[in-house]
């Protein structure tokens, strides 16, 4: 009897994972992250000032995860996201104008003003929607993966979710079913250490969520979620595995959100140690990539500065576009409840 070794958790990408990085790759990853950061900081200020409605769950701090994973996906590959979904949308290629317009509740928004921050969607980019129910997008992602497998079109799906979502039944049901059917899907857990305001140590016994992969007979991998090149490397391995028909992978990216669960005003209650916040900021993903890029001679400070400047201009343009866009007409309130 031959014994098949049980899949187990691996830690980090293989050594030398960044060796093949090119200027184009570094600039691309950097650009995705800067776009997220600047969008989020601008949006947060607009809500805080009362100019924009709603409330926001900001992705700042976690940019390397979205950028790294999305850099190995194409438009045909589908993702599902979370209440903290702006970063996934932007990294997947969503545009600022319809994003800001959606946040402003305008007809030119991605959802025509019907969805807002927590329901950004861009079907043309394979962004199957942010989702305001924790864990709600995970079963939908296995459906997208099923459709890919059913059609044999070679695409994959990826579902993003937080540490808190891995305590929800939908996570376990979905990972198990995807494993049983070898569905081409990446389960990407962005472990930022907190389920809203509850620290990981108070909501599970595990240190490494990737160990949950062992329960379902699939590979689990822990990766530094502040290192976009490392995230990209493990995501590439998982995508290749999915495309070979070998099934899903659970990726746990250790990361951190700089702002509160919601909004930008900072800590209203001292549920995080300020030293902890500063320690994570010292390993900021964007700065880390800028340092690596320059040290290795792959990109120059001018390259990075150009991205920051160009993004700032695009943000200003998109905010103006959103503000000047028409409001929805209450007479149309019943449109799109059903497909007719």
């Amino acid at each position, binding site marked *: 009897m031959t014994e098949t070794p049980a899949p187990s958790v691996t830690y980090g990408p293989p050594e030398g994972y960044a060796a093949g990085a090119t200027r184009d790759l570094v600039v691309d990853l950097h650009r995705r992250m800067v776009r997220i950061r600047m969008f989020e900081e601008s949006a947060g200020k607009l809500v805080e000032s009362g100019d924009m409605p709603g409330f926001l769950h900001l992705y700042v701090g976690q940019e390397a995860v979205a950028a790294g994973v999305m850099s190995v996906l194409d438009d045909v590959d*589908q993702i*599902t996201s979370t209440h903290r979904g702006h970063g996934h949308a932007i990294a997947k290629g969503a545009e600022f104008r319809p994003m800001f317009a959606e946040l402003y509740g305008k007809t030119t*928004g*991605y*959802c*025509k*003003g*019907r*969805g807002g921050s927590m*329901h950004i*969607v861009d*079907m043309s980019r394979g962004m*199957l*929607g942010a*989702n305001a*129910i924790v864990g*709600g997008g*995970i*079963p*939908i*992602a*296995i*459906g*997208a*993966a*099923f*459709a*890919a497998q*059913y059609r044999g079109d070679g695409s994959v*799906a990826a579902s993003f979710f937080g540490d808190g979502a891995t305590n929800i*039944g*939908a996570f376990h*049901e*979905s990972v*198990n*079913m995807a494993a*049983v*059917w070898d569905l081409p899907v990446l389960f990407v857990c962005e472990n930022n250490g907190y389920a809203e305001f509850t620290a990981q140590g108070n909501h599970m016994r595990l240190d490494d969520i990737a160990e949950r992969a062992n329960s379902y007979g699939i590979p689990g991998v822990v990766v530094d979620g502040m290192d976009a090149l490392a995230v990209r490397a493990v995501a590439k391995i998982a995508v290749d595995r999915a495309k070979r028909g070998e099934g899903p992978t659970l990726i746990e990216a250790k990361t951190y959100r700089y702002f509160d669960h919601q909004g930008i005003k900072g800590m209203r209650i001292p549920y995080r140690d300020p030293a902890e916040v500063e320690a994570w900021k010292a390993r900021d993903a964007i700065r880390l990539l800028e340092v690596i890029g320059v040290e290795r001679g792959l990109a120059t400070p001018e390259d990075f500065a150009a991205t920051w400047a160009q993004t700032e201009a695009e943000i200003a343009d998109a905010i103006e576009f959103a503000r000047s866009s028409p409001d929805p007409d209450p007479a149309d309130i019943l*449109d*799109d*409840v*059903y*497909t007719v």
Partner: protein
Amino acid sequence: MNTRELTYVKAFNEGMHQIMAEDPDVFLIGEDVAGYGGVFHMFDGLLTAYGDKRVKDTPIAEQAIIGLGVGAAARGLRPVCDLMFMDFIGVAMDQIFNQAAKMKYMFGGAVSVPLTITTAGGAGMSAAAQHSQSLEAWLAHIPGLKVAMPASPYDAKGLIVGAIRDDNPVIVVLNKKMLGVKGPVPEELYAIPLGVANVVREGDDVTIVAIGRMVIEATKAAASLGELGISAEVIDPRTVQPLDIGTIVTSAKKTNRVLIVHEAVEFGGIGAEISSQVQESAFDYLDAPVTRLAAPFAPVPYAPILESAYVPDAARITAAARKLVERS
């Protein structure tokens, strides 16, 4: 069309076979739907006919079953996801009412979800509180969902085909006590559009609106009422969402009396909605208050004597209709 007598479950099964033959985007997943053909034999023969890529047994994981259907439907396939007993819908409810129902609207129309959920509801088999419920009002309350409740073999086939061809999430609720009921069914593939009521029997003195299996009891009651000289019209809405209120109101204006019958509990049931809409649209025509006959506000009990007391039947429908007619 060539028509034969088929049982309710066989008619449903034929509809599944024919729609799967017609449309390669239709697939079926659920607990024991493939190898076993479904616990009610709704899906017999589908695995053999269409293979294990399109007919799949799942783990017992209702959230993942429905969620997979939502994602696959959003990607353009036409999933049929079976939930076996309607009572199990609670386990999957987030995917049904927060995801499937709302995606179209909250995404500004960017996506359609042509998902069909099949399940079996209804009491009368001593299956007790967690295997007997009629939860259609709960689903009909959610914008974005459609709910079909076939009450004959003809409708069991036509409504499953209509549901699968519909571009919205539809829950098709078979009645498990009707599985062996026989009736005429055309051989060809046909669809019943969702939202069109069936006037099962025409009459002049009282309108009986009946849901699901209560259509059979109401039809029996109408025969008894006929012997008493009372002419009853029986209407089966077929779908409670969308609700063909126009057909009901037209009938109410003719008969001036309306009785609504369902297996679900009376409080907050679909009868309350129908009653409210009838009085809003036909108040001046009514000779008596719109009346409901439904289950008491309790879980479905187990003992046969209790369950018989719980579910309306032809005798009680007859008595309630008589009371309405004799009132005025």
